[in-house]
C-alpha cells in the first residue's frame, strides 16, 4: 500500500488547467480547472492558481485546447485471458484500453476455460485489482457456452460477475431462453445477448447482399439477427428480464428495439464503431480485417444505425475488441477468424463518424461511451464530480491522422480501421485517480516521470 502510494505520488496529485469538461448529464461542456488530490477530485473551479500548489507534489497538465471526458467504459471486450494469451492478455488488454482512454471494461467469458465457474470470476477480479484497473467480468449464460445448461447465476453474481453473456454464441432453443430470462429476472442480473440464428448464419462469412452475390461469398442474412431480437423482445416482455443486445447490425433490429422501448420493455443495446462506420462494400477486396460477426452490413443498415444513435434507440457504443494473431487473419477470407480489435479506436472512430460526419453533439457521443454503458452495467455512473475518484480521459478532438499498425498497443493488429484517417486523440488517461497514459507525441513533450 505504502509502496504504491510512493510510486503514485506524482501521478495521483494533479492540476488540470484550462480544460473543457464534458458533462454528459447536463449535455454541456464548460471551461474549468480540476484539482486531483490522492486520486480524488477535490475541486472543480475556474479560479485555481497554480502557484498555490507545491510543484514537487502536483503535476500540472495544461489542458487548454483539450477536452476532459469522464473515463470511457467499454462494455464488450475480449481480453483472451485465460487461454489465448498469444492474442491478448489482461495486462496488454488494459494497456490497449488505457491507450484508448478507456478506464473500465467488461470482458466476455468465451475464454479457455469459459468463465462459468465462480473461481474464474474471482480470478479476473483479482487480476483487475492487481493491475489497478476496473474490469467487470461477464460470466457465461450457459455452461461452457453450449446452450444447454444454465450457469449458476447466483453464485457467479456473488463472485463478482457483472452480467451474463454467451457472446460468440446464441441460445437457439427458445424454451431454454425463456427459462434463462425467468431466472435472470428473479436474480435481477443483466443478460448481454449476441443474437444469431444459426440456420441463417452457418457457413456465412459476410453480409448477404450485393457484395456477397458479387464476390461469391456465403452470406449471413439480416434475418439471422432480426428473428432472435424479435424472439427475445417477446421473451423479455413476458419475463421482465433485463436484456441488452450487443453489436446490433441490422436496420430492422433497430426498429424492433425502438418499438420495444416504446412499449416499456426493459431492453438496451449497443453498436460497434465498425457497424456505424463501414458498409459491406469494404469486403470487396477480401480484406479479412472486415470479417466480423455480425457482419458489416449494407449502407441502408449503417444509416439506420446512425438514426438509432441519433434518436436514442441505441444506448451505448462498445468495441467488441476481438484480437487475433496474424496467422488467423492473414489467410483466405473463408478461413479467417471473425473479429476486429477496437479498444484504441472506440473513441477515434466515434469522433470521426459521429461528430465530424454526422454532427452529433460531443456530449451525447461521450455519454454513449462513458455514462451510458456504466449505467447499463450497474456500475457507478462515470462522470466528473467533486469527491469522486478520478477516472477521466483528456482528449483532443481536432487532430487527425492515418491509423497505422505501428500505433497499436494491443498484442494483435487486426483492426478494420487501418489506413483510415481518424479524428481525435487521447492525450492523458487517468484510471482510479492515477495518471496512467501520457501521449508523448501529442502532449508537446511535457516531461513527466
Amino acid at each position: 500500500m505504502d509502496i504504491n502510494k510512493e510510486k503514485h505520488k506524482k501521478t495521483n496529485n494533479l492540476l488540470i488547467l484550462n480544460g473543457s469538461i464534458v458533462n454528459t448529464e447536463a449535455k454541456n461542456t464548460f471551461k474549468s480547472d480540476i484539482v486531483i488530490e490522492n486520486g480524488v477530485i477535490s475541486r472543480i473551479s475556474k479560479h485555481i492558481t497554480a502557484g498555490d500548489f507545491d510543484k514537487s507534489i502536483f503535476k500540472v497538465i495544461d489542458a487548454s485546447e483539450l477536452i476532459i471526458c469522464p473515463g470511457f467504459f467499454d462494455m464488450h471486450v475480449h481480453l483472451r485471458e485465460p487461454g489465448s494469451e498469444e492474442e491478448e492478455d489482461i495486462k496488454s488488454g488494459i494497456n490497449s484500453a488505457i491507450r484508448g482512454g478507456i478506464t473500465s471494461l467488461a470482458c466476455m467469458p468465451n475464454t479457455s476455460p469459459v468463465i462459468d465457474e465462480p473461481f474464474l470470476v474471482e480470478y479476473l477480479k483479482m487480476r483487475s485489482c492487481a493491475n489497478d484497473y476496473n474490469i467487470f467480468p461477464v460470466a457465461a449464460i450457459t455452461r461452457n457456452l453450449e446452450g444447454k445448461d444454465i450457469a449458476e447465476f447466483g453464485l457467479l453474481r456473488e463472485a463478482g460477475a457483472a452480467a451474463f453473456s454467451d457472446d460468440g454464441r446464441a441460445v437457439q432453443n427458445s424454451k431454454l431462453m425463456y427459462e434463462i430470462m425467468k431466472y435472470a429476472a428473479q436474480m435481477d442480473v443483466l443478460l448481454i445477448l449476441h443474437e444469431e440464428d444459426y440456420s441463417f448464419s452457418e457457413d456465412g462469412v459476410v453480409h448477404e447482399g450485393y457484395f456477397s452475390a458479387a464476390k461469391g461469398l456465403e452470406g449471413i442474412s439480416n434475418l439471422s439477427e432480426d428473428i432472435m431480437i424479435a424472439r427475445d423482445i417477446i421473451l423479455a416482455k413476458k419475463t421482465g428480464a433485463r436484456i441488452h443486445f450487443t453489436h446490433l447490425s441490422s436496420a430492422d433490429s433497430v426498429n424492433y428495439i425502438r418499438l420495444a422501448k416504446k412499449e416499456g420493455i426493459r431492453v438496451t443495446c449497443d453498436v460497434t464503431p465498425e457497424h456505424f462506420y463501414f458498409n459491406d462494400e469494404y469486403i470487396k477486396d477480401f480484406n479479412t480485417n472486415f470479417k466480423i460477426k455480425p457482419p458489416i452490413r449494407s449502407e441502408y443498415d449503417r444509416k439506420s444505425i446512425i438514426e438509432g444513435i441519433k434518436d436514442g434507440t441505441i444506448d451505448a457504443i462498445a468495441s467488441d475488441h476481438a484480437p487475433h494473431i496474424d496467422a488467423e487473419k492473414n489467410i483466405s477470407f473463408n478461413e479467417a477468424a471473425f473479429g476486429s480489435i477496437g479498444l484504441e479506436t472506440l473513441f477515434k472512430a466515434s469522433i470521426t463518424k459521429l461528430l465530424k460526419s454526422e454532427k452529433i453533439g460531443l456530449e451525447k457521443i461521450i455519454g454513449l461511451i462513458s455514462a451510458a454503458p456504466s449505467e447499463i452495467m450497474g456500475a457507478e455512473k462515470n462522470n466528473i464530480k467533486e469527491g469522486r475518484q478520478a477516472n477521466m480521459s483528456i482528449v483532443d478532438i481536432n487532430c487527425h491522422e492515418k491509423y497505422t499498425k505501428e500505433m497499436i498497443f494491443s498484442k494483435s493488429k487486426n483492426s478494420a480501421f487501418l489506413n483510415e484517417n481518424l479524428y481525435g486523440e487521447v492525450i492523458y488517461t487517468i484510471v482510479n485517480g492515477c495518471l496512467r497514459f501520457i501521449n508523448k507525441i501529442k502532449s508537446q513533450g511535457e516531461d513527466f516521470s
Partner: protein
Amino acid sequence: MSLKNILDIEELNKTHVLKIIESTGYFKEVLGRDLKKVPALRGKTIINIFYEPSTRTRTSFELAAKRLSADVINFSPSSSSMKKGETELDTIKTILEMKADLAVVRHKDSGFVKYISEHITIPVINAGDGRHAHPTQALLDLFTIYCHFKRMEKIKIAIVGDILNSRVARSDISLFKKMDLEVFTVSPSMLLPEDMSYFDTKNFECIDEIIGQCDVIYMLRMQFERQNKKFYPSVREYNRFFTLDFKRFNNMKEGAILMHPGPVNRGIEIDGRVLDMEDRNLAKIKIGEQVGNGVAVRMALLHYLLSQK
C-alpha cells in the same frame, strides 16, 4: 492497358476482352494445324496449383502451355494434410522457390486466388475460386458465341440453373453484360442470390417462358457439391421446369445454340437423348466445341501475360 493477372472479369475492360478474343482466334487456327505447337513460350515454366481437383480444367491449361512450348509443373497441395494458418503461406513460399513464370490456381474458397496473387510476384491466372469467379471459362464461352454468331451485341442468352452457387454464372453474366449481350436467368428462388441487383437480370421460373426467344441456351451444372443445404425439392421437379429435354431442344429458336460448361449431369441439366445427338448437330450443340476453345483461350491468356514487357 496491360494486366498482370487474370483474377476476375471485373478487372477486364472491353478492349482487353476484344484483344483476348482476337488472339484466341489465332491460337484456334494454330490448334487446327497438323503441327499444333508454336515456340512462343519456350523456356517458360507454368505451375498449375490445384487445391481442388479438376482434371478437365487442369488438363486444358496443361495442354495450352505445352502447345506454346512452355514447361508445366502440376502441384496439388492436398487439403487433408493442410493445417490451419501457416500452411497456405508455406505453399506460397514453395511456389516462389520453384521459380515458375506464371501460376494457375484453383481453390475452393472465394477470394483465395487473389490472396495468393498478393503474396507472389509472378502473374496468376484464376482457374476457379469457390463460388466467386472462373474468368477463363467465361472467356471461352464468349469466344464460342462469337465464333458462331460473328457478333456479340444484342445476342440473347438464357443462363439456366444454379446461379447462387456457380462461379461460371457469376463470371459469365459479368462478361456477357460487359460485352452488351442480353442476359436472362432461369432459376428457382432458392438457387438465386438474395440480392440480385449485382446481376441485374430478368429471371424466369421456367425455361419454356423464354426458350423460343434466345440465341443461346446456357445450362449450368447443378452444383450439388456446393449446395451444402439442399433446398431444391427434387430432380423430377427440376426436370419439369428446367431440364433441356427433347421437346425443348426442338422449341429452341432457329439458329440458336446450346452450351454447358461440362461435365453434364445427364438427365438433370440436359436429357441424355439430346446429348447423344451432338455429332449430328454440331452447329447447334456447342458443348464439345467449348472444350476445344478452352485450350485456345488459355493459350491466348498465357501468351498475353508472359509476352508483355
